[in-house]
């Protein structure tokens, strides 16, 4: 029976419907239409758009590229973030200053930072090649070769988002119980052994959370690619989200880009669920 108390749930439910359910359902409906620059409105063309998605080689290539980029960048962010968090975990001189310093990249606007990085990587006028030149290293084609452009995007991603990993892992570290460390000390465990036997397993739940959050975010990479390389050279740095942006907002193929987005969403949900399960089995299962 509905009672007056249920009406208190109404604002939250309406918000949920407005910001999550409606856009999702609308996108699903749009994906079955031919809404395009020359065809406005929601006609019905069945699964034609989905047929196109499965035959769209460029989309699948961009997805493969995105997977590689996300896995490498998140792994690097985790490793560096963990190392930095461990470095300032214990009371160190200037620790508070370092914490703020490490967080600065995350607090900057990605588009603005990408513009700055593009200047840094400018091959004839940017400082990156000047600095390398001081060490006798020749000019690196940062943005004009496929490998260079991929690495450049990777560097910007790692630079910008390692602080996020650092923040989460540091929060995890400071909340760890002291007792296991006392026990390890009594047992005579050294620093290395304490890390692998105590810190790392205790941090497993936070690690999984941090990795999944970052993988979700990394899989949406768009602004860095847009500003830094526009997906080039050729298609060397074209990621799925950038490709969907091109199809949707540049080409104005609204119906098709809705289908691309939904296929992409399903792939992301499935693959991230599998990754989360694997991480649980690897990290938490081992502890258990």
């Amino acid at each position, binding site marked *: 029976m509905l009672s007056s108390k249920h009406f208190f749930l109404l604002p939250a439910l309406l918000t949920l419907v407005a910001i999550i359910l409606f856009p999702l359902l609308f996108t699903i409906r749009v994906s079955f239409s031919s809404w395009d620059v*020359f065809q406005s409105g929601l006609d019905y063309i069945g699964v034609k758009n989905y047929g196109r998605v499965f035959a769209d080689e460029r989309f699948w290539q961009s997805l493969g590229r995105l997977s590689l980029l996300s896995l490498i960048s998140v792994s690097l962010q985790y490793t560096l973030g963990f190392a930095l968090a461990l470095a300032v975990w214990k009371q160190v001189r200037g620790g508070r200053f370092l914490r703020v310093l490490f967080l600065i990249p995350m607090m900057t606007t990605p588009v603005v930072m990408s513009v700055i990085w593009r200047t840094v990587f400018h091959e004839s006028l940017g400082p990156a090649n000047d600095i390398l030149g001081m060490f006798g290293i020749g000019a690196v084609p940062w943005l004009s070769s496929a490998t260079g452009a991929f690495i450049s995007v990777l560097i910007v991603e790692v630079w910008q988002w390692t602080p996020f990993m650092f923040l989460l892992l540091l929060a995890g570290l400071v909340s760890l119980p002291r007792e296991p460390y006392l026990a390890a000390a009594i047992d005579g465990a050294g620093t290395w052994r304490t890390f692998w036997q105590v810190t790392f397993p205790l941090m497993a739940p936070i690690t999984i959370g941090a990795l999944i959050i970052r993988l979700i975010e990394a899989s949406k990479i768009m602004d860095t690619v847009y500003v830094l390389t526009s997906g080039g050279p*050729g*298609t060397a740095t074209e990621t799925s989200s950038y490709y969907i942006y091109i199809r949707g907002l540049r080409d104005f193929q609204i119906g098709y880009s809705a289908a691309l987005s939904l296929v992409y969403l399903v792939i992301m949900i499935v693959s991230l669920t599998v990754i989360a399960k694997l991480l649980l089995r690897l990290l938490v299962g081992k502890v258990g």
Partner: protein
Amino acid sequence: MKYRFTTSASALAIIASSAVPVSAQDYTRFGIEQDLPGTCSYAATDAKDYSGRTLNIITHAIPVIGEPTALHAEQFAELTGAEVNVVHVPFGDLFQRIMIPFQSEQNAYDVMFYPSLWIGDFSRFLAPVPEAYVNSTGMMDVTPSFTGVATWNGQMIQYPMDGDRHYLKFRTDVFDNADVQAKYLADTGNELTVPATWEEYNQVAAYFNASDWDGDGELNYGSAEVAKRDDLMFSAFISRAAPYAKHPDVQGGFFFDLETMEPLINTPGFVRGLELFIEAQASFPPGGTNFGLGDEIFSFGGGQTLMSYSWDDAYIQANQEDSRIRNMVAAAPLPGASEVWNRTTGAWDTFETPNRAPYMTWGWSSAVSSMSEEQEMGFDFLCFFSNEANAEHDMQIGRFGVNPYRNAHFDVDYWTGQGWADKTAQTYVTTLSEMEESQNRVFDLRVPGVSQFMSSMANGVAEAMAGQKTAQEALDDVAEEWSEITDRIGKDRLRDAYSNVVTLEDNEG
């Protein structure tokens, strides 16, 4: 009925205002040197009263076009009492911000500023320019090319306020230097002349690449080109391919065969153009394959490279007062081709005088929405925006993005008056005005879905430039995608639209 009345009233008003003499009133507070006589002069606009009425405008982000829009909107509001709201949108969002209200039948904006090649997508949503404005003093002086660009199915639906085209820019301190000429002759066996073909362009660029020919201690390079995939690179490719693919004796379509609507983008002329574009990369400055328009402007305008081709911006930058290469640059027509693909005979034709195919590319334009309830005020604003004094003022400021589009703008004295050297001004004016007279011009693919076609082409060209595919493979894939787009849009719909472009290219308009 209401519309007809408004239009008639507007026509009467504007005809009456044509007779308004330049007022003795001083309008220099608006930043112009003086008010110039014309239909929509400051004095004529000052005589209008739009108090209590609102005009909504969407335009590009500041500065390009966005800054003059904001400036003239403020002036228009002050002169007429209207409330003028200007929305600035980054380029990547501009199309959808205009298109979505159109498609959903919302009267979001009265006036729009956008790239003229979107006319094929927007045509059905635009109000025709009333006769009174077509006959205004400013409009009567617009060159036939840009009147044509504003016209759709015989009716003017865009309001010209900019004129764009690609042309060659080069350093005169190198090309006119007798010692350099002698050395070039000794080293290559050829005279150093302004390249007449793209093969010559590549040869000259390669010769001068990676050497300090201006003696400033820094390396210089051969060519700066817009080569970044999604940054107007499609225009650079069309400029390079045009003389090989646009045969002066073959009519009926450059991008498509108008009769069959089969794409021509993978025919040998385009492939040759792409192969030479790929070859030219060796003469780009470091990172040049990732140069967008801004980089190209900076590279040539900043004195790093010997040659370049694109819009006016780099030329204007090179000749600004603070430029270290001021008056050391000149303009010339885009290089041509000695061999041109003839698609009717399926063979290459040889030309003793290289075939030129000037590319009237892009250009900003403006229009009034057919859904607007303030069409009269909208057209008055556009007429004021592009009045004689404002056009003259805006062309002097490179970042505004307003370039010559009226006969009056092709005046050497005007440019020497800006401090340009005779040769710099003369070659600029001659190059631009000769393009107007060419009978073998190429225009943008102004059809519904133009962004899809250009995006597909840019991707194919970028793949070939990056070595992922050969020129032929890349353009074959583009042609296949173009056929798919054509099928989705519908051949007849596309043919109807494309015939507007072919009319201009075949000089039938």
